[in-house]
């Protein structure tokens, strides 16, 4: 066996703290190594050429590259090796950057560690067997989770590209957060006017199958072949009959239901349609507020419905859809006002959140666009906006910036001046973050043209005094305390992940950060992919994001799906578990331990029961391998023998 070892300098990344020449020298002494060399950038085109030439010249049959993490370039080098006719699994990578040169400063220790890492890789490479991927057909349908602007954009782009789209939306209407906004920055154009046509397109597109008021129950399968169970929540209204006429809402005697769409700015009826432009425009009953459900008698809506659509006996329904890829666009949440007790959020009615103020500004909102404060419906003359209400606040566990508050505060202050010309707005800010196109000009316009008073400092406390709210803050540029007697206080509450973000991530097998935002495959170069192939991200579920960025990411995710669907078959990864039928005793331990349900019982012709791995379902995690009491089930490319060869190299020599 002839192993070739190629040690990368990675500029100074590795060569700065590892003596690469010495490492190469040591590698040449290792049993089985026929050739070892160093190169400035092995991943570059000439670097890869050097590997190819060396394979031919030195008649190498195994290749080890000691460089960065295999997550970075394993695929690159496997392709290089394959081009010379070797099996790509004859390639092995030693990570001497992330695991070595980047984490230690002692050159001697690093050099020794690099030598050991290569020793391991060489022994492993010598044990490697050729593996061949299988091919399987792709189901060219896509699931989009979330019908906000990012999800709708992704769904429309996929559908226009000829794919069948299953769009699942948790709430009764598509539109998401954007449907709640009055105007959008920095152009101040009407939000629903630009979103409405997209919503209509989604509902009318023949390729899009919309499940509104539905949630993801279960996800099984793998890229190309997912089986999705969708829970259609009971609306207690037969949507095939409902015409959205609103007669039921008008007559509903339960008038104190929580209005989820308006974030509780005004009460709703127990049977409701969230907003006039809702799609689908169908009524649903909130059972926890409905008299029929609480007291067992009422039935007013059923009596007045002209088409007989009301059905109090309706139950949740589970439907199954098969798709080949998933785009997650599940959106974001906002922290509750009562997480900010020093601001009186939740205690004083005239301290509201930015999204609530947005509903008050909105012409189709509960106040028909007339600005009035919640306590006495008076028109406020002095309005205070507090930015970073919860954001950039380590003490409540939100160290990040919520991205778009600076901009929407400027917009709301401008709109306030438009609505009430004799009003005065103040903005407490720590920094004005307006890096987008036309954004900084917009915040300047709020100050220069609309006379909004910007105060550089945070607010310590808000408390009532008569009919006013006293806002006690600092002006750090003046170097003193300031107090404002406000009629209304608007808090730019921090953006969070949705409450069920983590549960959904676990169903999807994708990772999330400590705050519940989904983690992309690479923060710069793979911003819409996840580490689970076939699952893509769009919008604020990945991190706080404004509308243009969400739309851009929605389109990007659609492009990714279209690109994997441009082929008819996909190659499966051969690094999966395989059962040695001669050794397996049929104890079934692996079946119970497999998190993916990838192992089934199989009866041989002699009647013996053994385990069988369903190739397309196995994710190659290796749990079965370590569970099997007799070593019958082995994870290919990570077999017991291969791992023991590494351990022996490290411990015995």
């Amino acid at each position, binding site marked *: 066996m002839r192993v070739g070892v190629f040690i990368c300098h990675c500029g100074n990344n590795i060569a700065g703290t590892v003596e690469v020449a010495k490492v190469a020298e040591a590698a040449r002494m290792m049993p089985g190594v026929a050739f070892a060399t160093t190169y400035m950038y092995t991943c570059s085109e000439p670097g890869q050429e050097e590997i190819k030439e060396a394979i031919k010249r030195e008649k190498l049959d195994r290749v080890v590259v000691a460089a960065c993490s295999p997550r970075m370039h394993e695929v690159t080098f496997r392709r290089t090796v394959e081009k010379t006719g070797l099996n790509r699994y004859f390639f092995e990578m030693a990570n001497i950057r992330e695991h070595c040169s980047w984490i230690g400063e002692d050159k001697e220790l690093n050099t020794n560690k690099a030598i050991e890492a290569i020793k391991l890789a060489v022994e492993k490479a010598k044990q490697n067997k050729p593996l061949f991927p299988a091919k399987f057909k792709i189901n060219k349908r896509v699931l989009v989770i979330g019908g906000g602007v990012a999800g709708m954009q992704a769904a429309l782009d996929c559908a226009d590209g000829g794919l069948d789209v299953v769009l699942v939306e948790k709430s009764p209407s598509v539109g998401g957060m954007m449907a709640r906004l009055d105007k959008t920055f920095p152009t101040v154009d009407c939000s629903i006017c630009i979103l409405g046509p997209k919503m209509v397109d989604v509902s009318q597109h023949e390729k899009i199958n919309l499940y509104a008021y539905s949630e993801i129950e279960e996800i099984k399968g793998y890229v190309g072949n997912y089986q999705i169970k969708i829970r259609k929540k009971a609306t207690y209204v037969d949507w095939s009959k409902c015409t959205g006429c609103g007669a039921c809402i008008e007559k509903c005697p339960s008038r104190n239901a929580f209005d989820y769409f308006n974030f509780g700015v005004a009460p709703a009826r127990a049977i409701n349609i969230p907003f006039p432009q809702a799609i689908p425009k169908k009524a649903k009953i909130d059972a926890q507020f409905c008299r029929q459900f609480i007291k067992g008698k009422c039935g007013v809506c059923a009596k007045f419905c002209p088409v007989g659509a009301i059905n109090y006996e309706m139950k949740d329904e589970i439907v199954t859809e098969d798709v080949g890829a998933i785009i997650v666009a599940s959106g974001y949440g906002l922290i509750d006002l009562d997480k900010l007790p020093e601001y009186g959020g939740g205690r004083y009615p005239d301290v509201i959140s930015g999204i609530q103020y947005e509903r008050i500004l909105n012409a189709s909102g509960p106040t028909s666009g007339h600005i009035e404060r919640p306590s006495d419906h008076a028109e406020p003359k002095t309005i205070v906006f507090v930015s970073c209400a919860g954001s950039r606040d380590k003490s409540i566990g939100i160290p990040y910036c919520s991205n778009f508050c600076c901009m929407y505060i400027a917009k709301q202050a401008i709109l306030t001046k438009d609505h009430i010309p004799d009003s005065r707005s103040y903005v407490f800010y720590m920094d004005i973050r307006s890096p987008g196109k036309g954004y900084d000009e917009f915040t300047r316009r709020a100050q220069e043209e609309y006379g909004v008073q910007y105060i550089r400092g945070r607010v310590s406390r808000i408390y009532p005094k008569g009919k006013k709210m006293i806002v006690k803050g600092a002006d750090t540029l003046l170097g*003193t305390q300031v107090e404002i007697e406000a009629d209304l206080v608007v808090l730019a509450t921090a953006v969070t992940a949705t409450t069920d973000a983590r549960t959904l991530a676990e169903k999807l097998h994708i990772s999330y950060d400590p705050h519940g935002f989904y983690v992309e495959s690479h923060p710069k170069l793979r911003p819409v992919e996840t580490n689970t192939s076939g699952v893509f991200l769009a919008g604020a579920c990945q991190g706080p994001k404004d509308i243009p960025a969400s739309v851009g990411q929605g389109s990007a995710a659609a492009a990714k799906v279209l690109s994997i669907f441009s082929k008819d078959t996909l190659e499966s990864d051969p690094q999966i578990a395989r059962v040695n039928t001669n050794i397996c005793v049929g104890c079934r331990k692996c079946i119970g331990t497999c998190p993916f349900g990838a192992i089934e019982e199989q009866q041989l012709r002699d009647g013996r029961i053994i385990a069988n791995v369903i190739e397309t379902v196995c994710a190659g995690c290796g749990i079965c391998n370590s569970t099997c009491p007799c070593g019958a089930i082995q994870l290919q490319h990570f077999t017991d023998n291969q791992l023991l060869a590494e351990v022996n190299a490290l411990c015995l020599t």
Partner: protein
Amino acid sequence: MEPINLTEKTDWQFIDQVKKESLQDPALCYQCGNCTAGCPYTKYFDYPVSQVMRLFQTGQKETILNSRSIWLCATCETCTTRCPCEIDIAHIMDVLRIIARRENYVSEKDVKTFYDSFLSSMKHHGRVFEVGILMGYNFKSGHLLADADLGPKILGKGKIHFLPTRIKGRDKVAEIFRKFQEMRKNRV
């Protein structure tokens, strides 16, 4: 304010010293001003708390130790409670006061006198003897009749007494003081 030459006038040793004694890191402060916003004493301060923190970040030892703010701070801890960066600012103010006293920067003599009077009462009686403190403070500070009008009122309510209350373990409290003095001597 005079321009500050940060190359020459940043006292890095002072920054390290305060960091070490307070176990707080000034680099965590992003100058949002929330400490100043809530501070009930800002109107008496020469430098609001957020500026004391800034002076600390820039190592302006003389300015901080000569400031009145560090002596007037009541340690109510509103700043510590409100700080989004979880810095114990009140404790930093404490440490600054201790360093100022140790290095003989005392911009508010009365406050120091009051502390001395309070501590000597603790040392002798094992607990606070209010009348003793008042007398000690009034004599040493020269404000002979300060708060004298309040005396009869609270005497009548039985809140203070002319004779000190002696508590059990008085000697043990005195021992704490003795040990502290000894430790300080050894350190010097």
